[in-house]
């Protein structure tokens, strides 16, 4: 199916403004090449994925509701989201407010406006797989990532909870793998696709997180992966940052670059490596990906 939409509202979220800037850049690069316009919402605000949704239930729904209303006001009914956490918050909110009229009334009270509803939050993976389609993706590849062994890491929020994240299989998601195959890479099956990386405890229980990250990295290494592809700023930061700690503690002795899947896509589609901000990652990328960066 190759029915593509030409324009989506775009909600980048705060990570993509800051530490995950490169995710934002790469995503826009890919969509520009696909000829799809991402129109960033004017005056968007936090989605509540941070402390807000633990601390205050009302805030957890009011914040996304505000942004969803912005989508409607911009005249669109679908919003593209890169960050897995933002996607989860916005989608959860649409589903919850549809059924819970009491909550909806409370949300409307704090927003001081009606919650209009009818907006569909879409993760960019969902758009790429379902609206764009693999044939079109393949067609745009100019520098295939030939024989690059990639493991796709989905983490929690792209597949869980299953009633929210519905676009891929809960237990064995494959959308990112398929995209990587389209880019010419070898999508390596591995057991840790949806295991927790511990990002939400990364500051409070760092020793636990180190164990989790170590397991993930070792399995990736055992699968002979050269790089881990991710679609979530939290996963990326956690796997990248904690890898350095593990190296410092001499618990692992290898480097496993952790890249956003759109960075790899942009690369395969011929984007300049300079543009993709690989230097922002802590685990050095050049030595693994050198061949692909300089092709």
């Amino acid at each position, binding site marked *: 199916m190759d029915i593509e939409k030409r324009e989506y509202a775009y909600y980048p979220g705060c990570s993509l403004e800051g530490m995950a800037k490169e995710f934002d850049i790469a995503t826009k690069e890919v969509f520009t090449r696909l000829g799809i316009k991402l129109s960033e919402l004017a005056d968007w605000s936090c989605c509540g994925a941070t402390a807000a949704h633990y601390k205050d239930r009302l805030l957890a729904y009011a914040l996304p509701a505000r942004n969803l209303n912005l989508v409607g006001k911009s005249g669109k009914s679908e919003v593209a989201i890169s960050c897995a956490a933002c996607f989860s918050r916005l989608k959860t909110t649409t589903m919850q407010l549809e059924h819970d009229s009491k909550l909806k009334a409370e949300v409307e009270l704090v927003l001081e406006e009606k919650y209009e509803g009818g907006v569909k939050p879409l993760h960019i993976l969902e758009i790429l797989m379902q609206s764009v389609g693999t044939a079109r993706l393949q067609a745009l590849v100019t520098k295939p990532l030939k024989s690059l062994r990639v493991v796709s890491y989905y983490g929690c929020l792209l597949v869980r909870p299953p009633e929210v994240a519905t676009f891929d299989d809960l237990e*064995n998601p494959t959308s990112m793998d398929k995209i990587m195959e389209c880019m010419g890479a070898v999508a390596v099956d591995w*057991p840790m696709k949806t295991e927790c990386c511990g990002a939400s405890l990364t500051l409070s229980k760092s020793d636990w997180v180190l164990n989790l990250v170590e397991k993930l990295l070792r399995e990736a290494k055992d699968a002979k992966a050269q790089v881990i592809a991710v679609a979530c700023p939290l996963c990326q930061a956690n796997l990248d940052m904690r890898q350095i700690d593990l190296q410092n503690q001499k618990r692992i002795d290898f480097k496993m670059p952790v890249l956003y899947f759109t960075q790899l896509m942009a690369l395969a589609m011929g984007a300049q490596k300079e543009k993709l901000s690989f230097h922002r990652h802590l685990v050095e990328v050049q030595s693994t990906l050198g061949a692909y960066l300089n092709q």
Partner: protein
Amino acid sequence: MARIGVFICWCGENISRTVDVVKVAEAMAGVPGVVTSVEYKYMCSDPGQKIMKESIKNDALDGVVVALCSPLMHEKTFRTAAEEAGLNPFLLEVANIREHCSWVHENKEEATKKAIAITRSTVERVRYNLQLKNITVPITARAMVVGGGIAGIQAALDIANGGHEVVLVERTPSIGGHMAGLSETFPTLDCSQCILTPRMVEVARHPKIKLYSYAEVESVSGFVGNFEVKIRKKARSVDTSSCTGCGICQEKCPQKNIASEFEEGLGKRKAIYVPFPQAVPNKPVIDRKHCLYFTKGKCKICEKVCGPKAIRYEQEDEIVEERIGAIVLATGYETLPATFFPEYGGGRYPDVITGLQFERLASASGPTSGELKRPSDGRRPETVVFLSCAGSRDLAKGISYCSKICCMYVAKHAMLYQHKVHGGKAYVFYMDVRASGKNYDEFVRRAIEQDKAIYVRGRVARVYEKEIEGVKKLVVKGADTLLGEQVEIVADMVVLASAVKPSVGAAALAQKVGTPYDQHHFYSEAHPKLRPVESNTAGIFLAGAAQAPKDIPESVADASAAASKVQILFSRKEMERDPYVSMVNSDRCFGCFSCEAVCPYRAISRKEIKNRSGEVLKVVAEVNAGLCQGCGGCIAICRAKACDLAGYTDQQIFSAIRGFNTTSTYEEEVVKK
């Protein structure tokens, strides 16, 4: 003026604890037309019934209300008693003041008021009850059994040996069902085919059994004793009467890589095939989806090699009609496929298989001739992990029930594995071991103690493939809840004891037959304890795993029980039926035939009303009392109120509605006293 007697039961304390039965009796005594109103500790006891019977005679009652438990419990009892006392039994009605009142309310005043209202409404209704007579209908002493697994086979043989004709309908090309594919059976470890195939042959040879294999039930109409069934004989593309079953067609067919259903996908078959060597009937069928002639338009090799010229490419589905008196549903089960479990890699890893697949691997007639080999590379599995409850008792998978047979066959698998791979390691992950049956627990103990199966209590979270020393292994990650530890087992093969479900199409068949089923689509029995093999629809009986997960002995016992029920039905030439049938007042009927359109039993026909000179004055509806089942759909659709339903007449309902709301001041006062 009516002469109605009201008899109120204490049901020991069951009713009297929350309903003041004395007050109910007092209140009813004041109702016009009620000539006697008494309560008694146990109305259903002999002395209780005697009170009613004597009152019927002495007080010359022409209507009786018994206020007690649900009519499903004792309506029959009291109607029989009334009849014995000389009253038409249909002049008696039950007021349900136990299940619908005393058991569900705590406040005595409220419950008493409600009991009075219920009884009063019933009194008002009974005023208009008519004297009815049961309807007798003839019985066709001929049964249909749907499903040719062990349950269907047993039921068919028992009924046929009882001297009645049986039509056996099987969906697949051969009877035998799942049992034909099993390796050995618990708890005796005797070979499944050895005990089953003689029964299959007996079916084929039995003069009283007519077998329709590769056929499905198309529609069922009629009612108990008088069903009319249409059966679709699917086009086999082979003329079974001239085919000798020599097998040359199958041998020469060039289409050979089709996954065999019988081998659970682990073996191959041809496009023209007999599912397995002992199949009954032992005649091939062409799988038109894969046949070169049907897909590409050329080949016809089978036609060329067939000596008796039995190939019929042009054959079409054929609908045959059968008159049947009773139906046994024995449609069996299936199990969840491995692909249902992505967390265990089902469908991705060839060495993650289901229990039924393991049966084929372990079976002497299976694709490996009984040698245990991994489907992926043919290696002997040194370590096998068996997962019980794959999907069962798991609400996340939508299945709340226990699949019942798995504990036993997992123990059997572990044992068979040990017997075939000496020194191999068998792990069993389980939630509980449920081995309640004759010699069952002993069997499981044997697996654990003699054959050293390692039982780990806990569930498995994930199975994934990992290459270790050049060999693809399966890493099984789970929990040992007794040790409170996470465990990781590197295995060569994982066997999922995947949940038992009713066969595909079970619900659709139930809807055709008009019998209820539960949310999982298992067929519902009329009573879970007392009528376990009867459905709620008269003349429809249940056998085997179509009703709930069952093992072989249970399925066979069920089948014999259902067969005996069928024979009880067939022991009479005709049967009595409730007289609740629709009737049409042809004066009021103006012939719009909306009733005809909504009648599910085709019980409405058109009758011409003629004058003396034979001219047709009008055409009106008429009810065939033999076909009518008394649903009353025709009445609700009739604008002119020309139809009515005996036993549930408009007048009775109308009066009952009024009865609820005419609780008089007198009655209110009785309650307050």
